[in-house]
């Protein structure tokens, strides 16, 4: 079995190598876009990973929380504050900062409420029970999105500057992409600091390891889990805003599709492992962009979803603990 796995990876590398030799400029610019997209995916994947680490629950509704994050970002930034492609730099900075806060708070509180409403009553039930309610919650949220956004994609104005930072062989790398990519870093460092260095983070790690033992040590397990959902939701809010700015196009079912992609990323990196989630997301982002952007024998975008799922299945079959994961998933 491992031989087949290595063979597949080798084939992938050969394909990438040939593309690199044939069109190096395309390869570089597509790779940069993939990196940007991967960082946004990383924020969503972290939400899955955090929750899985602490509850061993695949929070199906997470993708839809992210989608509602995009929606609230759109309605705050564009409809309430009135940002548009011609807004001044000052207005854009403060408007987006405010939008970010609102989106984080909204998604965080939404996620906490979902946990309290649909998952906590089933904490001691068979494992599949909360997974099923998670699917139900995902449907409900998706329906809310459908009612708010309508069935068609909604376009978001180019709030961020669209000029080129630099161009490689005629392919521009936009300022918008750069800003989106750079904004993910502070969030990631803040998260790592929170989980590794603070008291609350310690409580989260302890709860992830053993809920009962954590409770005996005086950790309020329910509150810690709520806090984890709050953090995961806030990350989804950030991702919602950044994705809306990056792709300038949001849909009511983006939560389902990107959520599954992000979940794949979390599994690829090793679910429950936070750096792994980001690594996996970057890899998935790269694969997606290479698939859609390269010219030599690339299957193109109509196969993206199949490829992502094929990766998911292959990872689960060959290396279920993921790239960085240990056999027992633990947060932090």
């Amino acid at each position, binding site marked *: 079995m491992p031989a087949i796995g290595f063979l597949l990876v080798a084939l992938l590398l050969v394909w990438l190598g040939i593309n690199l030799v044939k069109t190096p400029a395309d390869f570089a610019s597509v790779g940069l876009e993939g990196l940007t997209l991967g960082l946004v995916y990383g924020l969503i994947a972290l939400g899955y990973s955090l929750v899985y680490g602490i509850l061993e629950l695949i929070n199906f509704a997470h993708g839809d929380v992210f989608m509602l994050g995009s929606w609230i970002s759109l309605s705050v930034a564009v409809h309430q504050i009135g940002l548009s492609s011609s807004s001044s730099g000052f207005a854009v900075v403060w408007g987006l900062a405010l939008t970010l806060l609102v989106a984080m708070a909204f998604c965080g509180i939404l996620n906490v409420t979902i946990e309290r409403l*649909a998952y906590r009553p089933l904490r001691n039930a068979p494992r599949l029970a909360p997974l099923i309610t998670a699917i139900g919650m995902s*449907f409900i949220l998706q329906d809310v999105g459908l009612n708010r956004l309508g069935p068609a994609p909604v376009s978001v104005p180019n709030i961020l500057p669209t000029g080129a930072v630099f161009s490689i062989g005629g392919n521009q790398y936009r300022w918008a992409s750069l800003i989106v990519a750079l904004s993910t870093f502070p969030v990631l460092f803040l998260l790592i600091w929170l989980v590794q260095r603070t008291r609350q983070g310690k409580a989260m790690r302890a709860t992830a390891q053993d809920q009962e033992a954590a409770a005996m040590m005086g950790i309020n397990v329910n509150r810690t889990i709520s806090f984890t959902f709050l953090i995961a939701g806030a990350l989804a809010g950030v991702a919602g805003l950044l994705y809306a700015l990056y792709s300038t196009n949001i849909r009511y079912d983006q939560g389902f599709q990107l959520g599954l992609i992000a979940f794949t990323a979390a599994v690829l990196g090793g679910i429950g492992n936070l750096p792994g989630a980001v690594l996996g997301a970057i890899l998935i982002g790269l694969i997606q962009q290479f698939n859609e952007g390269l010219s030599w024998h690339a299957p193109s975008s109509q196969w993206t979803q199949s490829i992502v799922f094929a990766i998911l*299945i292959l990872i689960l079959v060959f290396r279920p603990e993921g790239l960085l994961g240990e056999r027992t998933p633990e947060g932090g």
Partner: protein
Amino acid sequence: MTQLPDYREPWWQRWTGLLGEPRRRWRAMDDQQRRQARIVLRALLVAVVVYISWPLALLVVAIIAAQYAKPRIPARYAWASRALIPTLILVVAVTYPFYVSNLHAMRLFGAFPDVNTAVIMGVYVIMAIGLNIVVGYAGLLDLGYVAFYAMGAYTCAWFASVQFAKHHINFGAVGVAPNTPGIHISIWILVLLAGILTAIIGIVIGLPTLRLRGDYLAIVTLGFGEILPQVANNGDSLGGFNLTNGPNGITPIDAPGIGNVSFQTGYNSFFTGPRLYFWFVLVLVMITVFCSLRLRDSRLGRAWIAIREDETAAAAMGVPLMRTKTWAYATGAFFGGVAGAYFASFKSSTFPNDFNFNISAFILSMVILGGMGNVWGVIFGAAFLAYLNQEGLANIGHQLNQTFGTHLDVPLYQFGIYGAIIVLTMLIRPEGLIPSARRQAELHEGVADEPLYDVQHE
């Protein structure tokens, strides 16, 4: 067990625990109180159904009465007590096309479903029973059941349409002019063939993935459920070969037939096309129910239930995990394929867009609402939700709009309603409306809004 006050919860969060309240009350009751509560609930049910439609209420009362009569029938006539309710339901179902036009419209729900809708309900019943084998019996959450349905539908489409126009094959197909291009094989053979092919696909999918833990398995099946429709969508030029005709789908597909009577045209005003479709879907449902019940009580079925309840213990008792799970998967897939093939022939078309994740979740909510593990519950859940999806919700929306002068657009709320059904069922009555006794005991074990410092069950 004394219920400790959940004093750590802030006041503003306490309302969110209200959904768990009915279950807490129920658990606190003793047997006497539960019996009384059950009588009150049944009376309420009958009252509501009488309000909606009295013929329906008659059926409900008859079923409840039969249930009361069951333990009072002497053991000598055990077969009669077992056959009582199924026979009742079967008679009502078989004669349905004769009296449906004479029934008054239901309150709130509008007209009774016509025969065509009933065929669709039957197809969904077969699929739900198939999924119930995987989810209800073996406890493997399958979120990609639609892949099997798609596989069945496409098998039927390939071998009973003009898709492969190079060939001129006609084998038992009814109502197809001679020399029509394409492969045309009798639908009855195809229904079986689709089942077998789909079961093989199920085994192929299952072998590498079934060793995964429950929730990973759910995601992998979901992945397959997404990949197959995408293959169907992009399959109009797989290396230049047109396999699935892409987004345009394959249409028309031959209708089934007996002798030289095609179901499309019917025989006469008594044996009309829709009626024939309906009766034969009933036959398929009966076969499915029979297989499902016999399987449940077989050695294999008991192994499934053992795995569901405790995988480790089952393995220790010598149940071969992989083989047993693969069989559950293949059996579930078989019925999915059968239903898909019959449905494709009934609709006379198959499109990639018919097979998205929503269908998988829809079938899953039928199983959950009806009662995981109980065939009768699943039949009810499937028929009810399929009806809601086809006509019921639109009718209710129409009625509400007329009564209150609102402008609700029901399709916009459809999936929210299914989501709410799933969540509420899981929270309030996780064993479903008509539970299987065994599953009920399992789900009630430690399901409550209990604080964590109590004993924790896996």
